[in-house]
């Protein structure tokens, strides 16, 4: 088997604050293969965005990587000097942010922002870069690209702006794109368009995507594999179909049960009681145990590891001896 | 309550910043020295009878002709510089403080009325505020000062100098208070409890004030602290320009003005020491204001 595009090994992220070190992401590992769409799903505060920022090397102080490795094409990138990491950003790893309204510099035309990015990473002349920019705008489905290229961001609608953002992320054909809640800020009717666009473009160029979202529906429609994060750890990881249809971890089960299914009559929408603990208040043992319907005594003492269970891996003590 | 206060970010950041502690100490020192000026100062510079013209122009102690009675030397009338500085700070602080209170009361009042009543009055007040804000405070203060002195009879001018100053500086500084309070008032105005207050017969303005107060306390404290520094500078500037406190009972600004005439003849201490005293006072208050703003305004952190 060939080497995966991206490997995350035992990554931990800490915040050093005046009240001590807070561990926001703890000892997580996963791999992303070339061309794959890998979903990370979880509630806000679960650590999914931090993981994305750590991969592209944009964690903000006081957050920092406190352990583990990140490997891209089998080379470590978590400890690169700033200038080398900068060259990777955009060229090997692209990123799409949540809010297209604020992701673009309001004072520059979108053409200028595209050309600037292209020329940063290639030796294109101004004309070549402009042609490439036009090509990209057409590719992401912006009509009348020749006219639009000289316009400013505020002259675009939200959905159109997100298309521009995607074009910017894809500028120089990176191998991996991290999409952090790419559709959350958009109208529901536009969300599907943007997701389809992202999916098709990545398939066409063989780009892998890490899709970070709190919306399990988005993952179910788009991703190949998924990691469910809870309180800084991966609760369950596996092929999307398995995790959605046959979740193993009690948290994942609760999450899937709470997705409404069109056509099936339900009296109440299922929910998980309680809420995810804040970083500083995480319980001992398995962080989910206070809310877990299957919790046993051991759960508040021992931190569970990811174990094979069926076709997925789940971090739950219930599976420690291969049962139930 | 007290425990919460000591655990708060305010106290934490205070104890963590040596510069702020120092600034706090210096400010307290100035206040104490001003309040107890009569006890702290080695001489009473306003007692003309005790002055001896033979004592004039004595340099500071460490210079060749220094006199141990006058640590920082004397001025042209034989007044000890240290004593005039202590008494001068008292006057400067008094006028600065009174001006701040004046601005605060005026600004908070206008802001409350403006935000509560809205409409034409609000538009008018805010228009005036805008126009005033586009001119530097010192220019406004100078104008008011000039007008007041034009209205007052000549003989009364130096007796009323304090009030003229407080009024000129006070009126030139109300805008920021008014804007802050107005904003808060407008947020609260349409809330339901205000409507219900009418029903039970309490004036809505009264009940709103209770709700607005906690919201505006922080910003107003910050504005007032920084304003104190500005007011002290304004007083000193007006006095230096010769339209402030008369030389018989000089403030820091007046002292600098007096000393400035002797700068070229080599008696530098008459102007430099009051100048330093003024600069240190303003710097300390500014540091406190900066710190308060950083702590009370998390957005800027």
């Amino acid at each position, binding site marked *: 088997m060939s080497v995966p595009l991206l490997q995350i090994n035992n990554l931990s992220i800490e915040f050093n604050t005046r009240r001590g070190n807070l561990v926001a992401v703890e000892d997580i590992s996963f791999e992303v293969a070339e061309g794959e769409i890998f979903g990370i799903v979880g509630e806000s505060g679960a650590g999914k965005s931090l993981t994305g920022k750590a991969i592209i090397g*944009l964690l903000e102080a006081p957050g920092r990587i406190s352990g583990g490795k990140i490997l891209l094409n089998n080379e470590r990138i978590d400890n690169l000097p700033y200038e080398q990491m*900068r060259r*990777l*950003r*955009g*060229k090997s790893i*692209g*990123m799409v*942010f949540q809010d297209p309204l*604020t*992701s*673009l*510099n*309001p*004072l*520059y035309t979108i053409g200028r922002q595209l050309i*600037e*990015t292209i020329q*940063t*990473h290639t030796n294109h002349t101004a004309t070549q870069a402009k042609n490439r920019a036009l090509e990209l705008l057409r590719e992401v489905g912006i009509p009348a690209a020749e006219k639009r290229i000289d316009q400013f961001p*505020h*002259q675009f609608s939200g959905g159109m702006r997100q298309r521009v*953002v995607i074009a*910017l*992320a894809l500028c120089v054909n990176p191998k991996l794109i991290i999409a952090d809640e790419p559709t959350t800020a958009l109208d529901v009717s536009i969300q599907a368009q943007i997701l389809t666009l992202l999916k098709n473009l990545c398939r066409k160029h063989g780009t892998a995507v890490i899709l970070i979202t709190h919306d399990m529906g988005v993952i179910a429609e788009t991703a190949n594999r998924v990691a469910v994060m809870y309180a800084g750890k991966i609760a369950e990881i596996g092929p999307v179909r398995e995790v959605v249809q046959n979740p193993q971890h009690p948290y994942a089960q609760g999450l899937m049960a709470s997705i409404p299914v069109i056509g099936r009559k339900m009296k109440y929408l299922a929910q998980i009681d309680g809420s995810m603990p804040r970083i500083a208040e995480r319980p001992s043992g398995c962080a989910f145990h206070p809310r877990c319907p299957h919790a046993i005594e051991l759960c508040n003492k021992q931190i569970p590891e990811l174990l094979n269970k069926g076709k997925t891996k789940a971090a739950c003590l219930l599976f420690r001896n291969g049962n139930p | 309550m007290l425990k919460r206060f000591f655990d708060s970010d305010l106290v934490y950041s205070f104890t963590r910043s040596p510069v702020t502690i120092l600034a706090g100490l210096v400010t307290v020192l100035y206040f104490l020295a001003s309040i107890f000026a009569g006890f702290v100062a080695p001489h009473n510079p306003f007692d003309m009878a005790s002055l001896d013209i033979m004592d004039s122009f004595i340099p500071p102690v460490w210079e060749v002709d220094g006199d141990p009675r006058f640590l920082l030397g004397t001025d042209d009338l034989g007044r000890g510089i240290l004593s005039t500085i202590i008494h001068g700070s008292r006057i400067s602080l008094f006028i600065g403080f009174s001006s701040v209170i004046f601005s605060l009361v005026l600004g908070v009042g206008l802001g409350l009325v403006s935000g509560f009543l809205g409409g034409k009055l609000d538009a008018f007040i805010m228009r*005036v505020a805008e*126009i005033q804000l*586009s*001119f*530097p405070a*010192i*220019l406004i203060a*100078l*104008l008011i000062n*000039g*007008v007041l002195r*034009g*209205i007052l009879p000549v003989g009364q001018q130096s007796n009323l100098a304090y009030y003229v100053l407080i009024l000129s500086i006070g009126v030139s500084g109300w805008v920021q208070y008014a804007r802050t309070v107005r904003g808060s008032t407008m947020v609260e105005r349409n809330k339901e409890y205000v409507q219900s207050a009418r029903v039970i017969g309490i004036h809505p303005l009264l009940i709103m004030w209770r709700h607005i107060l906690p919201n505006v306390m922080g910003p107003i404290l910050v504005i007032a602290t920084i304003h104190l*520094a500005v007011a002290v*500078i304004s007083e*000193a*500037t007006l006095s*230096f*320009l*010769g*339209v402030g406190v008369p030389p018989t009972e000089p403030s820091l600004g007046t002292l*600098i003005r007096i000393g*400035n005439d002797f*700068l070229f003849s080599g008696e*530098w201490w008459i*102007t*430099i020491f009051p*100048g330093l005293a*003024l*600069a240190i006072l*303003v*710097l300390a208050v*500014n*540091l406190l204001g*900066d710190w308060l703003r950083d702590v009370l305004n998390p957005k800027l952190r």
Partner: protein
Amino acid sequence: MAAFIIRRLFQSLIVMFFVAFVAFTMFRYVGDPVNQMVGIDTSLVQREALRERLGLNDPFIMQFGRFVLKALSGDFGISYQHKRPVTEMLLERFPATLELSLVSAIFSLLVGIPMGVYTGLHRYGWLSRFFMMFSLIGISLPTFLIGILLIFLFAVQLQWLPSFGRGTVIEIGGWRTGFLTISGLKALIMPAITLGLFQLTLIMRLVRAEMLEVLLTDYIKFARARGLSNKAIHFGHALKNTMVPVITITGLQIGSILAFAIITETVFQWPGMGLMFLQSIQNVDIPIMAAYLMMIAFFFVLINLVVDLLYYVVDPRLRVDAVKAHG
């Protein structure tokens, strides 16, 4: 765009009208203009005749209208003290103040903006801390004290620079300039620094605060995520976005430089309008006070208009939404 400019012009007119009103009220009701013009031995009858001739018995509105009309034609009356036309006196002293203000404004911008950018980018560097400390001292030292300290150091102790006046001036077409002689330029150094220092620290702190704020925005994060160089991000994307507020404040600052010139001109005995204004306050010479107020207000309004126009150059959003946003 045209609608926006017309609206701003209209607002400026209101401001000017308001200031004129204040100036007129001052002019008319502070002290008695007649008393100021005649000697003690003038009889009551003569005074009343003069009063009638000057129109001081006319209704308020008429007097105000006349004041505005005269002001529009550049007539602000006769100085009580100097017995000369105020406009003539102001014009005579205008070049001195303008040259001083211009040089100190350029000085504060050229030094203040780079210092602000630097402290914004290197927030915790030792040089930044030094700059911040320096700026606090700059704000805490009153303008006149800075002037005195400079005089003490460079004029009294070192004797490098003159302590007062403009040096030798050359007259070109009625404009007396100090730019063309060595002594004129030397005389300009200390006043310009004194006047510019406060503005410099304000501009530096403002640019720093804006820079810090802009650096936290999504588009800067996205620019980083695209791998743009720090140079492009900081001096292209970030700096340009800080410019809108900086232009606003700078415009206002240039206005206040004109006003702070009063203090600087007093310290350095600089023969400009500010010094004259101060003397007019000391002597309650109302016509000069009123005229100076009107003139300063005119400059402020003018600067504000220029600032508004500059927005259009910098911020493309305004070109489309301006009328809507201000409506």
